């Protein structure tokens, strides 16, 4: 349960008891049921944020100072210098674990600083000995050396740095999918920490930042590593990936939260809509199905196996979650999360023209946006109505740009859509006003 909601409930309890809506006994039982809210004070939160940003800035500053390349120093001095920031970072981290093992601010800050110093140290050695510009090897050795910090110090920012680092590493192998695919086992290293941070506290800055970074890195990482074994695989892989985010973000949906606190749901939904929208264009089904990330040489045989395994697992997980939500009879979530399923059907029905999938996706998006509008009206929620109307408007506008309809017709349709927006909003606003 969201802490903010419980706090709110506890604030309300005395008033409810006073007005005779609840008895003192029931109020007590409610408190017993939800337990004490262990409150992290605002000062502590500020300490963590400022401490971590401070460590980050100092760390980056040291990297820049070393990048200046002080050539008056001898090779020996430079060798010593390479270790100085690293050892300082290590001593600091050890001190934190020794003296302040319970301070999240110290642990997060110390771990972040140490993570950066490991990179600074290797970078300086590379500089001193003119080690070739193989960015991949440099980043990978750095990341492998900081991954344990995440667990030893329960620190989240190093986990974020690690995820970004391995994504960069996978990027250097974008044309060598057999290597890039190692991104997935590397990313899996962070999963226990991610689950830990979610368990520790859902919907707080720490897990939100990590979720954001994880989603973005997983999306970019898949474009580097997956879908290179058969043409147009991206049409199935990406909707599946975003639907996984979307479904996971919708678990425990009874919690009171705002959108930015649920990056999985937010980015998942946006990703699914954007993909479904892209799938309404004929170019996707004509050209896009032959597209496999600019790689001319397709990998096949045994070397394609890792790609297949991970791609199929992503699709399978997506389908299992879909099935789970169907069982829960959560129609709204299921409809939105059906994009991968429809994409698979579309992929096999596309033929040479791709007419069928285009029709399917247009009808699907029309249905989805209208449903969203009506459900928003039913629940008196302006936000949902407007997002539904935005989806509808995007669809209609796109259709009128890619067909041969006269300007007069286009103009009229725009005006009608605009009036529709205003009218629905006014009607809803009046209704909401009336409800009060």
């Amino acid at each position, binding site marked *: 349960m969201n802490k903010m909601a419980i706090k709110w409930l506890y604030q309300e309890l005395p008033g409810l008891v006073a007005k005779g809506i609840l008895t003192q006994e029931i109020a007590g039982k409610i408190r017993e049921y939800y337990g004490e809210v262990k409150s992290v004070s605002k000062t502590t939160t500020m300490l963590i944020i400022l401490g971590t940003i401070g460590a980050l800035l100092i760390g980056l500053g040291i*990297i820049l100072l*070393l*990048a*200046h*390349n*002080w*050539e008056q120093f001898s*090779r020996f001095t430079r*060798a010593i210098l*390479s*270790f100085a920031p*690293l*050892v300082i970072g*290590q001593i600091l*981290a*050890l001190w934190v*674990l*020794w003296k302040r*093992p319970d301070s999240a601010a110290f642990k997060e800050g110390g771990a972040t600083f140490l993570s950066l110093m*490991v*990179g600074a*140290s*290797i*970078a*300086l*050695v*590379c*500089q*001193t*000995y*003119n*080690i*070739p*510009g193989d960015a991949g090897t*440099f980043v990978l*050795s750095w990341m492998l*050396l900081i991954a*344990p*910090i995440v667990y*030893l*110090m329960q620190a989240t920012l190093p986990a974020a740095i690690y995820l970004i680092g391995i994504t960069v590493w996978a990027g250097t192998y974008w044309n*060598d999918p057999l290597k890039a695919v190692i991104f997935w086992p590397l990313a899996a290293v962070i999963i226990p920490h991610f689950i830990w941070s979610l368990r520790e506290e859902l919907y707080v800055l720490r897990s939100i930042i990590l979720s954001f970074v994880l989603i973005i890195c997983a999306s970019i990482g898949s474009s580097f590593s997956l879908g290179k074994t058969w043409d147009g695989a991206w049409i199935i892989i990406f909707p599946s990936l975003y639907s996984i985010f979307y479904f996971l973000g919708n678990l425990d949906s009874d919690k009171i939260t705002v959108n930015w606190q649920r990056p999985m749901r937010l980015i998942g939904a946006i990703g699914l809509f954007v993909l479904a929208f892209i799938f309404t264009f004929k170019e996707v089904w004509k050209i896009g199905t032959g597209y496999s990330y600019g790689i001319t040489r397709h990998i096949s045989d045994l070397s394609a196996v890792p790609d297949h395994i991970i791609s199929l697992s992503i699709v399978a997980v997506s389908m299992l979650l879909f099935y789970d939500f169907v069982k829960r009879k959560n129609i709204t979530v299921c409809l939105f999360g059906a994009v991968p399923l429809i994409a698979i059907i579309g992929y096999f029905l596309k033929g040479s023209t791709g007419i069928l999938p285009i029709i399917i996706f247009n009808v699907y998006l029309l249905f989805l946006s209208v449903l969203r509008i009506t459900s928003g009206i039913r629940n008196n929620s302006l936000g949902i109505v407007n997002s539904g109307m935005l989806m509808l408007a995007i669809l209609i506008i796109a259709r009128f740009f890619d067909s041969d309809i006269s300007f007069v017709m286009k103009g009229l349709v725009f005006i009608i859509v605009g009036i529709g927006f205003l009218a629905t909003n006014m009607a809803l606003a009046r209704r909401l006003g009336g409800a009060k």
Partner: protein
Amino acid sequence: MKNKLITGLLLLALVQIYVPLSMIIKRENVLKSGEQFKFRTVPVDPFDAFRGRYVALRIEGDHVTKQGAQDFEKGRSVYAIIEVDDQGFARFDSITLSRPIGKAYIAAKTGYPSGGKVYLELPFDRYYMEEKAAPAAEAAYRQHSQQGKLDAYIVVRVKDGFAVIESLYVGGQRIEDAVKQAGKK
């Protein structure tokens, strides 16, 4: 628990120190006892956010002419055998898949073959310099090349196929000195 974490961090700290230390020791060893070669090069100045400014090196003899039967696809690990021309500069004579005996060689990867040549991705492609010095170095080189003297080269130490750059020379001078002199003018 606390002690376990501290022990873990101590072990990690050792590994974190070991990695850069082993990088240093390996290269110091080559610089000390490796065989010396000169490669003609063209320097240009780019920049790396983490490691600073450097002059990128385009080695002149970074290829071998294809040998009949052996076709090397891109990305093969090969041994490039070094030969020295009559002017004292090194270039590559041939490439083999097995470690050569009794000849100086560098372990490298093959690039795209083109025009009957196999290009090599050599383990020296950059020379780090002070922030302001790297662009100045490129300018110093350009000045020299305009005078028709294309005489930039790197001195490399090679041992058991492993190469480490010792220094970069332009117009017969170490680049750092050339930049300082150009600065004085």
